[in-house]
């Protein structure tokens, strides 16, 4: 186990010990307990001493309505197992019930998972960390006003929205076996977020994730869906993940990456469709990490708790550039890892229905589509005017030109475009005309800011 990719980077990890106490109810495959087992395993590997650990606070309902509709959040807030009959109509409307059962503490669970995710995004935005990890929740199926596929509140979405405050382009990668349809739908029409999802195609409940779903409007070509067939193994997965991601990075040039590390693509999972081992899965993390961008690692599906703990522990170690032994150290849940008590798992002998030919063809298809992207697209950089009203200073001339002034007065120095004429009468060195004026739109460096008062003064004199 050698992770030499990239340099050692600062890692922040978000976890709340309560998260393992929520239970979706009898027979439900989703077990938040896996997140707790991961944390305990991290402790016994002493990985917890190597990263900054945060306990997130619960997100407010208000925060969640940044994406979700008010009605839906209000409903999630108030629904409990004991008042379900009262809400039967709404439950239907919001698709809460079968796959997404009402359980005790449902909303708190959403609040916790969202809290961790959003806090980690803010941390990335403030450049206080290089990698943020939050295994809890990460409910990539939830829709604006609809629960879906064990997911109620879409925390990943809120994370991306948060990141967009500071990043022009955000890349979302989904290596869960299911498509991240909640995310894809939410950002289907924007070119600021590219969603790349590798998933099993067909038969699955979402039914979306077709090769042809490539985005709409401005977001055309900004959704990438890689449909895979049963039984894909490490080798094949790596053979597609690497080239596709490299191409995406090259064409889209994101400034932040959100990686959803759903684990139902692992071999021996409850759904039992893909045949990836932990190493193969973590290789994706390694690759994304090697791009050296601010990265957010999130959890996702994964229904065999012991493998969830194994894999996410391993992937945390990858993020930390730390090697950990294959022999599992003793911890509270040690017995779960029997009979071999090893960290890594071996693939099953299931048949791989993906042929090289099939994967190659789809890959080519993507490359064609990615070529349609305008190189490094996105919004223009522009200065958003301050809304705060600055205190009026007296005479500008009295100010010390060498003293750094705050951004507000400096903005005031930028005169309106119309104030400048092209006439030569006033022609004097340093005058701005419409062609070189454009530069002012650029965000000023500190140097320029300092120069400006002087320029202004000159103009006044002339």
């Amino acid at each position, binding site marked *: 186990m050698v992770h030499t990719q990239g340099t050692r980077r600062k890692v922040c990890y978000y*976890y709340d*010990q309560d998260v*393992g*106490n*929520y*239970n979706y*109810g*009898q027979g439900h495959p989703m077990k938040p*307990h896996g997140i707790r087992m991961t944390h305990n395993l991290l*402790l*016994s590997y002493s990985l917890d*001493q190597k990263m900054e*650990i*945060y306990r*997130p*606070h619960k997100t407010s309902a208000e925060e969640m309505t940044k*994406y979700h509709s008010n009605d839906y959040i209000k409903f999630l807030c108030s629904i409990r197992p004991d008042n379900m009959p009262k809400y039967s109509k709404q439950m239907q409307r919001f698709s809460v019930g079968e796959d997404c059962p009402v*359980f*005790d*503490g449902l909303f708190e669970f959403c609040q916790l998972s969202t*809290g961790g995710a*959003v806090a980690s995004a*803010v*941390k990335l935005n*403030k450049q206080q960390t290089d990698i943020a990890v939050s295994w809890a929740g990460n409910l990539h199926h939830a829709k*604006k006003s609809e629960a879906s596929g064990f997911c109620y509140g879409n925390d990943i979405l809120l994370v*991306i929205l948060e990141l*967009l*405050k*500071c*990043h*022009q382009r955000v890349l979302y990668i989904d290596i869960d076996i299911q498509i991240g349809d909640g995310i*894809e*739908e*939410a*950002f*289907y*029409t*924007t070119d600021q977020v590219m969603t790349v999802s590798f998933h099993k*195609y*067909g*038969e699955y409940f979402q039914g*979306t994730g077709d*090769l042809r*779903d490539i985005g709409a*409007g401005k977001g055309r070509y900004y959704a990438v869906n890689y*449909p895979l*067939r049963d039984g894909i193994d490490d080798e094949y997965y790596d053979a597609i993940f690497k080239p596709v991601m490299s191409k995406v990075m090259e064409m889209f040039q994101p400034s932040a990456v959100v990686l959803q590390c759903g684990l139902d693509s692992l071999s021996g999972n409850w759904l039992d469709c893909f045949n990836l081992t932990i190493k193969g899965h973590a290789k994706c993390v390694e690759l994304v990490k090697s791009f050296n961008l601010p990265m957010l690692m999130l959890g996702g599906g994964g229904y065999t708790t012991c493998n969830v703990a194994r894999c996410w522990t391993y992937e945390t170690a990858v993020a930390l550039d730390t090697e950990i032994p294959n022999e599992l150290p003793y*911890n*509270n*849940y040690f017995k*779960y890892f029997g009979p071999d008590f090893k960290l890594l798992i071996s693939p099953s*002998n*299931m048949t791989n229905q993906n042929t090289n030919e099939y994967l190659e063809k*789809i890959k080519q*298809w993507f490359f064609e589509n990615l070529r349609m992207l305008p190189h490094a697209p996105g*919004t223009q950089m522009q200065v*958003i005017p*301050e809304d705060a009203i600055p205190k009026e200073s007296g005479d500008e001339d009295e100010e010390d030109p060498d003293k750094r002034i705050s951004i507000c007065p400096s903005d005031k120095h930028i005169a309106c475009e119309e104030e400048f004429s092209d006439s030569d009468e006033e022609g004097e060195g340093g005058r701005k005309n419409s062609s070189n004026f454009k530069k002012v739109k650029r*965000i000023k460096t500190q140097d320029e800011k300092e120069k400006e008062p002087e320029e202004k003064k000159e103009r006044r004199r002339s």
Partner: protein
Amino acid sequence: MAANMYRVGDYVYFENSSSNPYLVRRIEELNKTANGNVEAKVVCLFRRRDISSSLNSLADSNAREFEEESKQPVVSEQQRHQLKHRELFLSRQFESLPATHIRGKCSVTLLNETDILSQYLEKEDCFFYSLVFDPVQKTLLADQGEIRVGCKYQAEIPDRLAEGELDNRNQQKMEMRVWDPDNPLTDRQIDQFLVVARAVGTFARALDCSSSIRQPSLHMSAAAASRDITLFHAMDTLQRNGYDLAKAMSTLVPQGGPVLCRDEMEEWSASEAMLFEEALEKYGKDFNDIRQDFLPWKSLASIVQFYYMWKTTDRYIQQKRLKAAEADSKLKQVYIPTYTKPNPNQIISVGSKPGMNGAGFQKGLTCESCHTTQSAQWYAWGPPNMQCRLCASCWIYWKKYGGLKTPTQLEGAARGSTEPHSRGHLSRPEAQSLSPYTTSANRAKLLAKNRQTFLLQTTKLTRLARRMCRDLLQPRRAARRPYAPINANAIKAECSIRLPKAAKTPLKIHPLVRLPLATIVKDLVAQAPLKPKTPRGTKTPINRNQLAQNRGLGGIMVKRAYEAMTGAGVPFSANGRPLASGIRSGSQPAAKRQKLNPADAPNPVVFVATKDTRALRKALTHLEMRRAARRPNLPLKVKPALITVRTPGPLPTPSHPASTSEPIVLED
């Protein structure tokens, strides 16, 4: 023998009837029943032959769309025919079948744009699907959700913060730091502190009454003090004391005795644990109910936490072992040996044992599908009274893919949607093969419902046979019993025996001029009873099934001359052969000539207006047009001068002032 190992998730063939094609199913569960048999819970996949014709045409249009969109290379007619056998329809329907009926594996994949359809034909046992069939609603749907677009679904992208603008939210309110890796302590110091914390915990247990009862030995106390909760607490203590070891140490031993951290595992008394086990037995993992009825003083979180810890105890492992016996009934895979028993449809030795399958089959008959006469094995195919047979390879094809390799008369007639329709005639074997379970009562309904039509294109031999073997055929009798089968092969065979003799005494065939309908009908009535003279020779059992198709064709109403349209190059085909050639053979008696009936035919008949016909229409006055519409059986009289207008030049101005210069489009 991996090939005979069937796992959950495999697509397999099931045999539920010896003569019908296999069922294609996906194994969802394998359960052992009380008597030791293995039952497979499977998802049903349907073949094209299992769904109604209207849904078939829907599937056709879907396939066409797919072909266009994915730019498929052109496939031959034969390939197109065989591809229909490779298409399946997924359903959400489950059923239980005995695992011993499994007859092999196959592969079913969701069709993908990058697939080349013809490649499915190259691979044995490969199917594809793109649509989902609902057997209850009788609908076909694309197995696809859709990504919805609209402000109801998309997120609003927030404005980016200006450079320098700060997110003024208080991070303290969003998170709480629990550990800082950049602390001044070395790894060794931290480890030392963790040991101290455990030591304090062990001592605390020694002091604590309830703990000392539960953990009577020092070892047990030490083990309990080494549980994760103590370690988490120790790390927390370090962080809270600013990584000052001395300060942290003193917080571990506050006034009033050492700190004792116990998780749910330790917190619960033995009796509570017993209650929990009892409750778990009763309610399963319904922790809400467990709490309500057994442990109301515990919080739900603490019950959940306890449950997961309890799973690591020996008690659980014991229980698991007990339950393992039950779980045994759920199998992951099952070994089914290759099925070797001969199929009862196999024709054992031709003609030797009367009453057996082989009886009645004559030498020299060909495979219904590939027309070979040589095969190591023969299989009776189709309804028993039809006496059709398949060669070994076609039989396997039939079992696996539910069709014949080549479009046959039967299939070509009833399946292809490009065929013209006549009046709801459905060839009978077709009706039977539509659903193997249809009772004869249902069949009539099916006939009426499907309105799948065919056009019988008779060969010379057939026409001859009708006359030569009138005694065998008994056309009038057959006409009265339209559901009784006719053995066409037998008649043809008989005919070929009689033919050499008959050639010397030419049959009297009145060369009929095309007469009005009434005369033709009269003529037919008059002719029929006149010729029952042909010698009664061999006593071949009469199987009317195939010739019955002929019944009544002579009586098809001829309402309007149709040649003009077919002459315009419309690719109509009948029985898989181009129709045009048959129509042009003028030697046929007029009464037997096929006429299509545009007014009566269901949708697939398309009237393609040519320039000429459009010009003709223009030539008609409004009144004439309406009259013609009221009397569809009368030929149209068009002024000869106007018919000759064939040039693409300006059309003659309509004689009726009300008609526009736009061509009138008739929707037939």
